């Protein structure tokens, strides 16, 4: 079983759109057996908007416990204030106040309190879901607002995706990764078989791609690059290719800027429709509808073929 992670560092390069399209193509690829999809962007998960999942299962995600205060026991002695390094405990007119948003759940105040007035309470920090999509089962999640531990939730999503993949004897998990290079990305990246970086020819795109590449290198993960909207600025595109060449990074695809892609998205559709219907009983339409039966569709199909060759 292989795991493909699609990331971008910078947002808005087209990562989720490409993942959605690869999901459609994977379903149509005979070599790929029962692909499983995982949305590891737990902070602002969007993949479900193009894949229209029907949620089958919803589970609570418990983050770290958080400090709570028993007012009856608290005598406002204030011993908890200096030991909190996250400025989550303050005193207002001599009354202790806990800020659950700043609390990181370390529990130091709980241990210091001489009157056992602080409790560590379970905290639902988000939810994760298992859903059915026309392109295979999908695991996705929703982190609560202002929550920590996105990395831990990403681990949960990946664990569940792997479990489903094993049950189905699947040979591919496609993951939509979080932005940035911090804790959720690290959780999403460790141990995958291929990281596809979707970048764009902008000064910010190339800058973020380089940081992401260095992160992946540190984890010893194989990297391939896709330059999306490559014709937006041919010089910067050439710079990206130059960087990839110099670092021996495989450029798996180049996709032109296409306003119809944006338009398709505003309608909430994947930009390529399936060639053949997989569900039993559905007939194969003679027109084989591709919403983009041209260069953009071909460019993404080529990208997909190269990824498959790289993986297997």
């Amino acid at each position, binding site marked *: 079983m292989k795991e493909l992670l699609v990331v*971008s*560092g*910078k*947002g*808005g390069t087209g990562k*989720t759109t490409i993942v959605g399209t690869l999901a459609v193509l994977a379903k149509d690829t005979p070599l790929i057996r029962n692909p499983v999809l995982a949305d590891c962007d737990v*902070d*602002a998960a*969007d993949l479900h*908007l*193009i894949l229209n999942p029907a949620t089958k299962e919803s589970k609570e995600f418990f983050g*770290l*416990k958080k400090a709570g205060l028993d007012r009856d026991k608290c005598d406002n002695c204030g011993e908890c204030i200096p*030991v909190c*390094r*996250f400025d989550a405990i303050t005193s207002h007119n001599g009354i202790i106040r806990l800020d659950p*948003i700043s609390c*990181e*759940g*370390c*529990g*130091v105040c709980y*241990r*210091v309190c001489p009157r056992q007035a602080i409790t560590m309470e379970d905290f639902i920090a988000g939810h994760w879901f298992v859903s059915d999509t026309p392109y295979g089962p999908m695991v996705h999640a929703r*982190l609560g*607002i*202002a*929550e*920590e531990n*996105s*990395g831990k939730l990403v681990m949960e999503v990946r664990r569940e995706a792997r479990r489903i993949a094993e049950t189905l004897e699947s040979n591919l998990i496609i993951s939509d990764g979080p*932005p*940035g*290079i*911090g*804790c*959720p*990305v*690290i959780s999403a990246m460790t141990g995958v078989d291929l990281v596809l970086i979707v970048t*764009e*020819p*902008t*000064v*910010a795109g190339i*800058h*973020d791609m380089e*940081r992401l590449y*260095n*992160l992946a290198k*540190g984890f010893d993960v194989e990297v391939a690059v896709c330059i999306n*909207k490559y014709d*937006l*600025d041919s010089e*910067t595109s050439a710079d990206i290719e130059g960087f990839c060449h110099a670092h021996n990074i495989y450029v798996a695809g180049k996709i032109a*800027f296409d306003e119809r892609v*944006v*338009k398709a*998205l*505003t309608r*909430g559709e994947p930009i390529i429709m399936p060639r053949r219907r997989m569900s039993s009983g559905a007939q194969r339409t003679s027109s084989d509808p591709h919403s983009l039966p041209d260069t953009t569709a071909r460019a993404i199909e080529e990208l997909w073929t190269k990824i498959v060759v790289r993986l297997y």
Partner: protein
Amino acid sequence: MIISVASGKGGTGKTTVAVNLALTLAETESVCFLDCDVEEPNAHLFLKPELKGSSKVTVPVPVVDEKKCNRCGLCGEVCAFNAILPLGEDVLTFHELCHGCGGCTLFCPTNAIREEPQEIGVIEWGNSGEIFHVQGKLNIGSPLAPPIVKAVRAHNVDRPQCTVYIIDAPPGTSCPVVSSVMNADFCLLVTEPTPFGLHDLKLAVDMVRELKVPFGVVINRAGLGYEDLADYCKAENIPVLAEIPFDRRYAKCYAKGGRLIDEFPEIKKTFRELRQAILVSAGRV
């Protein structure tokens, strides 16, 4: 006055809005720009500051003195982050998991644990024309962004007295974003008229409401024909303070690291109106 520029979804034009707004505000105010998108700081690509100083951001991590340690195992029990693990005769530490809460050091009965600063990133500062620029950069491989965001916000070396602080926040709604928006006087949420943009805007709205920061929306790439976004803002009574049309020329300008207000007079006008709207909303005018 502190103005945070945030967005649920990445790539909606948050940095573009923050940079052009900062330049516009600098015409009438003394502006400090704080790039708190420390995982991928990009504003410097457009503001091109002359950096003149930098300092390391560290978190205190535990170091165990094997001679003093009596293998009681309490440190492992205390640590909520699994960053210290007593294992037989050894005590293993995982500094990348440590949040620097100091619990293990505080509770060790034999004082066998001391703290050492571990570098997780840097902050850098300098001038970009009239604007004082501060940015944070998370070290590659380090997972912990919020302490760097806090360091950027707290930075005061060389910093002149400013009337306006613009914070370029990271995307999303999780801890580093909260650190960037908390205690701001106003928050601009940048979005785009697509289902992704709307979905993530709703999350961002929930966040700023929870943080009780007054806010308004900027719609970037307006005119894509997705009406649900405007309908949502109307239904929720959220002020749309500016719209920047979808235009390939703007995308090209951004791609090269250009500033929209320098190249397009109509955008300059939009940002002057936005400046006015924010100052009014915040009760400054």
